[in-house]
């Protein structure tokens, strides 16, 4: 494929509907050729943002630059973007090949050339020889691939995907993730992928933007996003968390100690916090473990109240004075010592993260 991705630059883009702010002023820079995800709960404004980039919606304020060119005022059919819809929006009355070649037809490409290009693209998405079928005759995964081929046919610089995998079952979804990633690498097109499924975003993306209530809270690589969430929302939305509200009692070198109902928690301060301020301490279940006699920054005596086997991992629920804590550990076979009633559990200071919160929230 000769196409190369272009960068997308949103400058202070905001969208309001009447008094409702769907998207607060946001800056966003997506690099050329990147697999970029926008992750957030439903209603956070991510689809609105996607419609702004694709040109179906004019932003209330701000500019949209694609490949360095201001395209805020161009319609969807004038932008070098292609959108893959959540429901795919395959044209039911056209054959697969006609679907794929539709964008070329719109550009006045001749019938023969259209068919040749369509077949080429169908090869790319592993649908060789399916050109004369109707979309209704294909399976879910095949329809997915037709949608990708149709979007790629117009050689877009940026491909926008609006939760296209949500209708597929789990197995197929995992398979399609890998396939999308492969296609993206092979074509070099910039992918902007919208999803509410964090595992999807973590698995495929080069970088992820996490959105909440119309605002982009953090943009980072999947690893850093998971390990170093910048806000409580990001920490809570990406992966699981044990979280405890409390008050900061001590700070030092980027670390803070928080007094919470279950006791004192020492953790890394994601943002500067002041002693006496309300704070939120969070620790991921997989970081919590049996500590035995080992010295750790955080240590609690707790009762095991429930044990849930999830296959490769086991989730343990503990109760202690003032609260509960969930720990997740790899399934190492039957180890009866977990079944004892009282345990010493804990985690290192680097495994916990402390956020300042508004006093009213605390």
């Amino acid at each position, binding site marked *: 494929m000769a196409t190369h991705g272009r960068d997308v630059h949103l400058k202070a883009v905001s969208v309001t509907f009447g008094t409702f702010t769907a998207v607060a002023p946001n800056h966003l820079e997506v690099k050329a050729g990147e697999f970029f995800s926008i992750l957030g709960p439903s209603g956070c404004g991510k689809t609105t943002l996607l419609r702004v980039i*694709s*040109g*179906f919606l004019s932003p209330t304020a701000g500019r949209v630059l694609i490949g360095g060119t201001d395209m805020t005022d161009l*319609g*969807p*059919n004038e932008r070098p*973007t*292609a*959108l893959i*819809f*959540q*429901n795919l*929006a395959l*044209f*039911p*009355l*056209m054959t697969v090949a006609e679907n794929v070649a*539709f*964008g070329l*037809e*719109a*550009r006045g490409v001749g019938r023969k050339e259209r068919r040749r290009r369509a077949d080429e693209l169908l090869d790319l998405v592993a649908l060789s020889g399916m050109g004369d079928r*109707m*979309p*209704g*005759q294909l399976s879910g995964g095949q329809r997915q691939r037709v949608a990708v081929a*149709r*979007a790629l*046919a*117009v050689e877009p610089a940026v491909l926008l995907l609006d939760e296209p995998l949500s209708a597929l079952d789990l197995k197929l979804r995992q398979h399609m993730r890998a396939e999308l990633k492969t296609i993206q690498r092979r074509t070099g097109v910039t992918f902007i992928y919208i999803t509410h499924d964090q595992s999807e975003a973590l698995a495929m993306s080069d970088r992820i933007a996490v959105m909440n209530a119309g605002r982009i809270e953090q943009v980072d690589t999947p690893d850093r996003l998971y390990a170093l969430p910048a806000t409580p929302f990001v920490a809570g939305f990406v992966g699981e968390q044990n979280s405890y509200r409390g008050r900061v009692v001590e700070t030092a070198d980027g670390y803070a100690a928080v007094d919470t109902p279950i006791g004192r928690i020492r953790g890394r301060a994601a943002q500067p916090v002041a002693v006496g301020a309300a704070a939120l301490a969070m620790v991921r279940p997989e970081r919590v473990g049996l500590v035995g006699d080992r010295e750790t920054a955080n240590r609690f005596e707790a009762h095991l109240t429930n044990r849930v086997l999830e296959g490769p991992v086991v989730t343990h629920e503990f109760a202690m004075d003032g609260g509960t804590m969930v720990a997740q550990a790899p399934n190492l076979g039957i180890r009866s010592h977990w079944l004892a009633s009282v345990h010493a559990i804990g985690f290192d200071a680097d495994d916990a993260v402390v956020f300042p919160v508004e006093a009213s929230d605390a």
Partner: protein
Amino acid sequence: MTRSEGRAARIVLDVYIGLFLVYLFAPLVVMSVAAFNAYPYPSVTQWRGFTLEWFPALFRDERLMRGLFNSIVIALGVIALSIPFGLAGALVLHRLQSRAGGLLYAIMVSPVLMPGLIIGLSTLIFWRHFSVPGGLFLAMVAQASFIASYCMLMFLARLERFDLTLEEAALDLGASKFMVMRRILFPYLRPTAITASAIAFLQSFENYNTTVFSIGGDWTLVTEVGSRLRFGLSPVVNVVGVVFVVLTVAVATLYVLLSRRHVASDARAS
């Protein structure tokens, strides 16, 4: 409710439906039988033997044949008018959800709720201002004004099930609005256009109440039958009835068969 009470209710209902079916079909039978009676007036009580003579008589009847021709001309004209009007109305309403849309909807639906003779008369009065007298043209215009409403409703019902993302997908792929209409919307509406044309044709062909008030000195098959029913009865009228039934049932059967094939291919396509 006890079991026996349910069974009794069921029997009452079955008997009622039986009587209702007799009510529905008795006139049909009487009408058809009289078409084969040799008696020169339509009758089943005065049986003078079986005959087919009224069938060729129908085709020799110049006024009826001319009426048939007029009916077909008007019906084709009605299709040519009401399909574009109905389609345009539905497309406009589909995008106007505001109060203006509500008012426009009321105006477009109102002809369906008006007695046919009102439509015929108002058309006649209106066109007199342009010195156009009652005739085939006015009958066609009067019929189209309310048949377009039926077409509009059919198109609108289909449009309401239209997946708007298809249109957006096409635009996103670079299609012009005209191309969206030609390649996406019209193919989607084609089955409705065919059904609506068939219904428009039948409605026009069968229409009496509107036509008789706007046709002036001219006539259609149905208005001619109407005046024969008052003056100069002959079993030829019954023959017309039999031909009507046979043709309609044949066309309906054909339509059902075709649409079933269409549904099957649609089901495969979606």
